[in-house]
Every structure is written in C-alpha cells, then in structure tokens.
C-alpha cells in the first residue's frame, strides 16, 4: 500500500528560510522538493568531501580487515581531522611503497659490488683513470686477466665474480666482455636507507590500523555533511519571488502525521497551504505493508517504485515470489536449511533480521513446493520413506512431466490473477468500463487453458454452451472495452488491435517453464552429488569420511548455485510477466524526508 501524502506549500521571508529548514530537519518528517545532485560550487564541495570520506572509509575498511593487532585507541578529535590525517597517511604510505620498491631494485643491482665508499671511487677517477665494471660467471673468469690488466676483484662468490678494470689514460683499452653498470650508491648505504624507509612504513601502517578502528567517527562526519548538503539543497531549491525576498517551498508529508506537523507549523507563525497530494504533483512514495509483505519490499525496489496513483503490487507478488523461489530450488532439504539459517541467523546477525526473515520464508516456500515432487537433498521422499505415499496419491509423487505442466499452470494462474487485479483496480479508480477488458482477458486465458487441457484430459471437457459463452464474452469485452472512451470506430479498432496481445500472453506463459527447468536441473545436480558420494563410500577405511566431505561440499555448492537462480528468475517473472499483466507503470520517487542523518 502507498501511504497517503499531503502537499505543503510554504511561503517564507528570505531570511526566515534557513531557520525554518533547520527546524524542519529536526522534525524529520517533510520531504522538501529538492535536487539530489550538486547545484552550485558550495554543494559540489560538500558532495566532493562526502566522496572523499567514502574513499577513505573504504581504504580504512581494507586496513581493518588486514590488521593483525587488535588493540584500539579511541579517536578524540573531530571527523574532519581524522579524514585529513588518514588521507595524509595513505598518501605517505603510497610514496614510501614506491621508494621502497625503487630502493629494493637498486639494492639488487648494487649487491654484487659489496660495500664501498664513494670517496675511494672519486679518488681513482681524480687520478685520471676510467673505471669499467664487469660481472662474470666464476667459470668464465680467466685468472690470467689479473696479470694482463689493471684488474681488481671487488666481490667474489661461488657463482660469479664482480671486478673493476681501470683504463689508463693514453693507453688503448681492449678488455674483452660486456660491461656492467657500476652502482652510484653502495649497497651498504642502500640497505641502511631501505631499513629506514621500512621502519617509516611500519609506523605509518600502525597509525592507519589505529585509525581503522575509528571508522565510526568518519561515518558520523559523513552523516553530518550529508545532512548539511540536504539542508542546503532544500534551501537552494526555493522558488524566489518578489526580487528574491520571498521563498516558496514545496514539500510532502504522510497524511497520518499531518496533525503533528501542522501543530509545529502553527507555532512557527508562517503562511502555508496544505492539500491532499495529487498524482500530478509527483509526490514521493512511502510503502506501508503488512509485516510479511514488507519483507519483499527490497525486491520490488530493485525494479522501481510505483507512482502515486498506482497500486503497490508488493502484497500481491510476495506469496508468488516465495513459492516461485521454492519451485526453482525444488528441494525440501535445501528449503529446510534456509529455514534454519533464517531462524538461527538472527542470533548471530541481529542487524540482518529483515533479510533473515525473508530467507526463512523463501525456505518455507521451498518446503511447500517441494512436497509435490518430494525431493530431499537430491533423494526422493517416495523412495526413502515409502510409508508416506501409501495412503494418498498426491504428495511427493509429482514426476518431471507433472512439474512441467504445473509450472505452466502456476504461471497462467499468476497471469490471470494479475489481469483480475488490474480489472478490480481499474474499476475502483477509473470506472467499471476500464475493468472490462482485463476481465475479458482473464476469461479468454482460462478458456484457452481448459480447451487445450481437455485435449489431454477428457474430464476437463467443457459443454459447448459454456465454452461458446466464455469465448464470445471474453472477445467481446476485449474488443469493446480495450479503449473505453472515444468514438466507436476508434474503440473497435483499438479493441481488435489489442487482440494481438494474445502472442504476449503465450510468450509469458512459456516464460514460466523456467520454474520447471531450474527445479529439475537443481534436483539432478543433488542426485549426482549423492551418487558420487555413494561411490566414494566404497573406498576402504576412509570411504565414509570422503563421502561425508563430498556430500557437505557438493550440496553446499548446489544450494548456492540453485539459490542464485531461484532468487533471480522469480524476480524476472515478477518484474516482466506479473508487472506487465498487472499494468504496472512504476517510476515513483522514494520518500526521503529532510532529517538529520545518524
């Protein structure tokens, strides 16, 4: 259900506006019409700052995950200084990492030359000698070279020898071999520098780890800025009148809270107008559903919210979604696991209670639907407990073909339900003529279903008068009332054209085959896991252990994959098939009152 809204138009003197909006924000009830994006430099600065905070929070979250030291130290200062410090530390950390990388590379090149002093090198060069550096594998080093050339071995290992050869001024230089680069900084100096930088990096990381335990301070700062931005945007959206002296503001508040709001407005002694919101005002949408239906609101919001004068379809798609999920999961055992996760999860994750309740009901849907084919962790109930199927021939006994037709029938039922829902809603909101075409469609779909089914099941044969009446009435309603207003020829033309929608209904019906496809493939995968586990059980000594491990991992994997499909495909059936047949337009904007964010 969509909460009724009252539209308020406030007339304020320009200087009154900031104070009034502050009070309105404290009240946290009125959704003032405002831009959601920055409108000028000030709001852009605030948005940029919020973005910066978000980036730093993300980086600190990664630090918090990676840190080993669990000690915490509360941050005493304001969020702004935490943001500044964290940004500086992250920047320093990046530079230090780059420097350390570069030093490590230099060290790798300098290590073969061992420690030396730059002064010694300079002295040799001052004497007019040119230094040539070489690194040779030990086996290629010719000891005769030491006699033939002014050669000095600098570093010698088992594998390689690093040496210098001096070029005497005025003499020709003909030493064989490829020259290496002689380091400009000795390795002992580089090692010292590297140690220093690594120590600095450690200090930086330690401080970031301490800050990462104070993300809450940054979040509060973000909320403070976000509230400021919201307030500023509300003020900036005021319609300026009388040379900017008068501000006109428009907002919406739930009608059931009008008394509370209006008593506040009376105290403020300002001029305002209030009227029930109309669809043309584009009021914000606040959904108000029963406890069960509200669990499915996040699913509906993934598509879009209804517009103000539209029917909120959440209570109508919720039971279908639950059962469709069960159809796609297709296994009582997996359903039972989801029910347990939903029930027990709340003790470990109290903040996720809403989602866990949804998981509970999705699991319940799986148990309900899977009682038809009787799948239980890839096994068949009819095989593991034959006594359960002895005195009845319905539960646990649907074969694949039964499930195939049941999926199509279930889909047709949802399509007919959606058409009837449209009919009732149109009759209430627009008049009886507007509900006739959807009723015609519902009758036509039921007629076509029974007519086709009767070709396979003789008991379903309709008597000719009933069949003819259904067909004539349905087509007449569609042709005459698809366009209930306007000249007769246009109405008939539109009515005939709308008959083309029969292809759409056929396509929608086929789309429900996915329920069967997903349920069957999931069941087969469960069966394969069991078969493999049984074959492993024959391995001597450790067979049962291996089988148990395979069963646990295999079924967890199948549950994960099947649950993903079972979550996504009913969503498609809801948003495309059900919403289309229920004449859903959507596009409403969410109710976001001006309030202080906490």
């Amino acid at each position: 259900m969509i909460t009724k809204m009252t539209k308020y138009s406030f007339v304020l003197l320009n200087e009154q506006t900031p104070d009034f909006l502050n009070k309105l924000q404290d009240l946290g009830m009125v959704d003032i019409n405002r831009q959601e994006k920055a409108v000028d430099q000030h709001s852009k600065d605030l948005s940029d700052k919020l973005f910066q905070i978000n980036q730093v929070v993300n980086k600190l979250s990664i630090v918090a995950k990676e840190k080993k030291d669990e000690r915490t130290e509360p941050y005493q200062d304001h969020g702004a200084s935490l943001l500044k410090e964290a940004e500086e530390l992250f920047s320093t950390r990046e530079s230090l990492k780059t420097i350390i990388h570069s030093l490590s590379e230099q060290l790798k090149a300098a290590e073969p030359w061992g420690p030396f002093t730059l002064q010694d090198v300079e002295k040799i060069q001052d004497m007019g000698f040119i230094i040539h550096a070489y690194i040779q594998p030990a086996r290629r080093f010719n000891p005769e070279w030491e006699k033939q050339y002014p050669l000095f071995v600098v570093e010698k290992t088992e594998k390689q020898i690093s040496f210098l050869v001096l070029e005497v001024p005025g003499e020709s230089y003909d030493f064989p071999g490829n020259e290496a680069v002689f380091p400009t900084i000795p390795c002992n100096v580089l090692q010292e520098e590297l140690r220093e930088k690594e120590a600095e990096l450690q200090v930086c990381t330690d401080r970031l780890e301490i800050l990462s335990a104070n993300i809450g301070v940054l979040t509060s700062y973000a909320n403070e800025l976000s509230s400021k931005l919201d307030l500023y945007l509300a003020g900036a959206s005021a319609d300026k009148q009388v040379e900017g002296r008068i501000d006109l503001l428009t907002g919406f508040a739930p009608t059931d809270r009008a008394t509370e709001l209006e008593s506040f407005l009376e105290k403020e002694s300002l001029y305002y107008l209030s009227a029930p919101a109309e669809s043309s005002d584009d009021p914000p949408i606040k959904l108000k559903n029963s406890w069960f239906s509200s669990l499915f609101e996040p699913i509906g919001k993934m598509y879009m919210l209804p517009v103000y004068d539209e029917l909120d379809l959440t209570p109508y798609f919720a039971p279908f979604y639950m059962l469709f999920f069960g159809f796609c999961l297709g296994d009582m055992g997996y359903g039972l696991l989801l029910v347990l996760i939903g029930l027990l999860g709340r003790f470990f994750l109290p903040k996720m209670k809403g989602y866990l309740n949804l998981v509970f009901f999705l699991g319940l849907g799986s148990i309900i639907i899977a009682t038809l084919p009787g799948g239980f962790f890839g096994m068949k109930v009819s095989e593991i407990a034959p006594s359960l199927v002895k005195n009845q021939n319905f539960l646990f006994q649907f074969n694949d073909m039964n499930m195939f037709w049941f999926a199509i029938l279930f889909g047709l039922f949802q399509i007919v339900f959606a058409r009837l829902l449209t009919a009732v809603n149109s009759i209430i909101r627009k008049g009886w003529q507007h509900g006739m075409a959807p009723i015609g469609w519902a009758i036509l779909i039921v007629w076509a279903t029974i007519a086709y089914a009767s070709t396979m099941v003789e008991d379903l044969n309709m008597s000719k008068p009933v069949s003819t009446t259904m067909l004539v009435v349905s087509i007449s309603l569609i042709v005459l009332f698809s366009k209930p207003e306007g000249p007769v020829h246009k109405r008939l033309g539109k009515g005939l054209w709308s008959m083309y929608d029969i292809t759409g209904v056929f396509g929608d019906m086929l789309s429900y085959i996915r329920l069967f496809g997903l349920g069957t493939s999931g069941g087969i995968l469960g069966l394969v896991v069991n078969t493999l586990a049984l074959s492993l059980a024959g391995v001597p000594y450790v067979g049962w252990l291996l089988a148990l491990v395979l069963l646990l991992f295999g079924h967890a994997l199948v549950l994960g994959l099947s649950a993903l499909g079972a979550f996504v495909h009913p969503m498609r059936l809801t948003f495309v098939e059900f919403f289309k047949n229920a004449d859903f337009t959507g596009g409403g904007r969410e109710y976001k009152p001006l309030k202080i964010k906490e």
Partner: protein
Amino acid sequence: MNTLPLILAYIGIALMLIPAGVGSAIGTVLAGNATVSAMKKNPNIFGSAMILSALASTQGLYGFAAFFLNLGAINSLDGVLTMSQSLAVLAAGLAMGVVGLISAIKQAQIAANGVVEMSNGHNVFGNTLVLAVFPELYAILAFASCFLAMPS
C-alpha cells in the same frame, strides 16, 4: 542390435553437454575478467559483481541436466532405440548445445557491462540482474525440449 540409432543418440547427448559447458566457461570468464578490472576502480562491488559473474554458469548445468536425463532414459531402454527416438535426441542435443553456448556468452556480456557500470558508481545491479536473465530463458526452453524429446 542396430548401433546407428545408439551412435546418433550418444552424439546428441554429447552435444547437450559440450557446447553449453563451453559457453558457460567462456561466459563466466568474460564476466569474471570484467569483475577483476572493475575491482581496481571500486573494490566494494565484489559481492554483487560475483553474483553477476556466476549467472552464465547455469547453461552448462542445464546441458548437464539434459545429458543426465537422456543418458538415464537411453540406459533404461538397454540402448535399444528407434531411429526416430535417436534423431529426436540428436536434434534436442543440437538445440541445447547451440542455444546454451550463445545464450551463456550473450548473458555474460550483459553481466560484464553491468559490472563495468557498477564500478563507475551507477547502481545498476538489480536492473542488470533482470536483463541478464532474458537470454537464459532460451537455454531453459532448449533444456525443456531435451526433456520432451527424451526417449521412453
């Protein structure tokens, strides 16, 4: 025993499994690569991006399920098939293979685009999820056709 129908039927069930599996493998790699690149921009989207990357894995599963059902059906007949039964399995296998292969790759392309847009800060997870399952319907229909063409 006439072996030609049996050979044709086995080619059919191989076709159910191989191209659909290859399609899923290509599809998951395609979307997975997009996820890895997107993580550089926004590491927070990993959970949602992983779900989108996994979408294209189902075609391979449908192929496997179809293979499993048909293999069971052939075995239950002790490998004695009529030419018409074996041609039905071959045709259904061809349908499952080709449709599974193409739908997995195309589905992954939608998922990969969604992941890229999510990394750019657009909240398109729900929309991508819904759009990405559009091409999968045809793989499901192909699977259903394998089920209907099963020899009995």
